[in-house]
């Protein structure tokens, strides 16, 4: 750990850094921006061995960790490091392709347009089956959800869901499932297994896929999800290989997840 006093220069303008730094405490000024703790300094210039465009000057007394190579990074700051690199590369990728700063919201909308076939460059934009399918999902997802009130306890909720499969009311099922996804604290592991068996009984491959995606959201243990997939693989693999359903289900899954993330 090194300590620097206010107004000291850490790296001069036009210098090629021999090290890079992590701010534990204090502030550094660079290119008219103030960088506070948990930031990395000169990392990219260090890796690419290019000159820094502006100097790094201490704004508030600093404690820094210095590194001569990225493999010196310890486990406790690895998450910050990965986040930094992820943000850096995402921003370049999106600046390059979308000519904009990275935004999750925008990306979801873009992907949605792509899947719906709004883009001009696609071969399947006039695919009526696909459009019909997506409209049906829109109907399932958007127009009916507000009419639902969820039961208070999880057992009643489970019964509603099971009944709706038995009654072949998949629209009701999806809406209940979506609305209750994060309402109850109970575990869904065994329940999902039961639901998948029911979906197989009514020979609905799309529903099995949907439930596997729900499993991906509700079960944290990869092994359990893999077990579910393995158990039902024969049904998924050989039963009516409709790629649009796979694709649409992925779209629905993405929407569900992002809604959760954006709520936080």
């Amino acid at each position: 750990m090194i300590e620097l006093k206010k107004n000291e220069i850490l790296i001069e303008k036009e210098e090629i850094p021999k090290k890079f730094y992590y701010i534990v405490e204090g502030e550094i000024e660079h290119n008219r921006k103030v960088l506070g703790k948990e930031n990395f300094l000169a990392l990219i210039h260090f890796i690419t061995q290019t000159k820094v465009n502006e100097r790094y000057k201490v704004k508030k007394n600093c404690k820094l960790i210095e590194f001569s190579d990225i493999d010196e990074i310890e486990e406790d700051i690895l998450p910050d490091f990965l986040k930094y690199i992820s943000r850096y590369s995402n921003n370049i990728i999106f600046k390059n392709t979308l000519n904009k700063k990275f935004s999750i919201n925008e990306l979801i909308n873009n992907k949605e347009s792509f899947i719906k076939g709004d883009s001009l460059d696609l071969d399947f934009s006039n695919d009526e089956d696909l459009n019909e399918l997506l409209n049906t999902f829109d109907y399932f997802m958007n127009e009916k959800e507000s009419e639902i009130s969820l039961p208070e306890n999880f057992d009643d909720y489970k019964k509603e869901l099971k009944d709706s499969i038995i009654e072949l009311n998949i629209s009701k099922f999806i809406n209940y499932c979506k609305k209750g996804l994060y309402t109850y604290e109970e575990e869904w592991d065994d329940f999902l297994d039961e639901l998948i068996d029911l979906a197989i009984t009514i020979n609905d491959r799309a529903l099995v896929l949907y439930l596997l995606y729900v499993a991906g959201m509700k079960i944290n243990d990869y092994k359990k999800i893999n077990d579910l997939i393995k158990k039902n693989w024969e049904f998924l693999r050989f039963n009516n290989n409709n790629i649009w359903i796979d694709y649409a289900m992925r779209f629905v899954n993405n929407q569900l997840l992002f809604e959760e993330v954006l709520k936080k």
Partner: protein
Amino acid sequence: MNYPHLKNFAAKNNGLYYLKNGIVASVTYSKKKPFLVHIYTPGDFVGIDKFQEGIGVLDYFILTECDYEIVNDEELTDQKYKQSFFDFLKTFLHEITAYRSESYEKILQYNLEKISRFSNEIEGLPLAFVKEMGIKSDLDKLLENNKIILEDEEYKIKK
């Protein structure tokens, strides 16, 4: 989609895909069209886009026979993976930093070059994938300008 994808977009994965064999392409979407972002080759760790928001933001498609291992986030600094992971990061950051000052056409050419160097199975981007992803017009533009060729149903870099 006919090309298999790795679970990433919108997913909260614990771990990265450590590619042992095969070629993976990342894709993103603008309002108007999709873009091929980057080609991953054996030895690469796929999925670091998720660390920014804790959720994957790119789509990854597998272009060839593929063999990968999921390395949990906590395992990245294990002796077994540490060196490979940091070696990958260095190369990746070099590439990404170079993208900052290059046109999209140049980036596409670079990625086609990568496929031809690192794959024994394909020499370029398969036409079927290009059509399916809706990135045909970008590649056709390179074709018109004689930067690449279309041969055996693949868009390839000129040798």
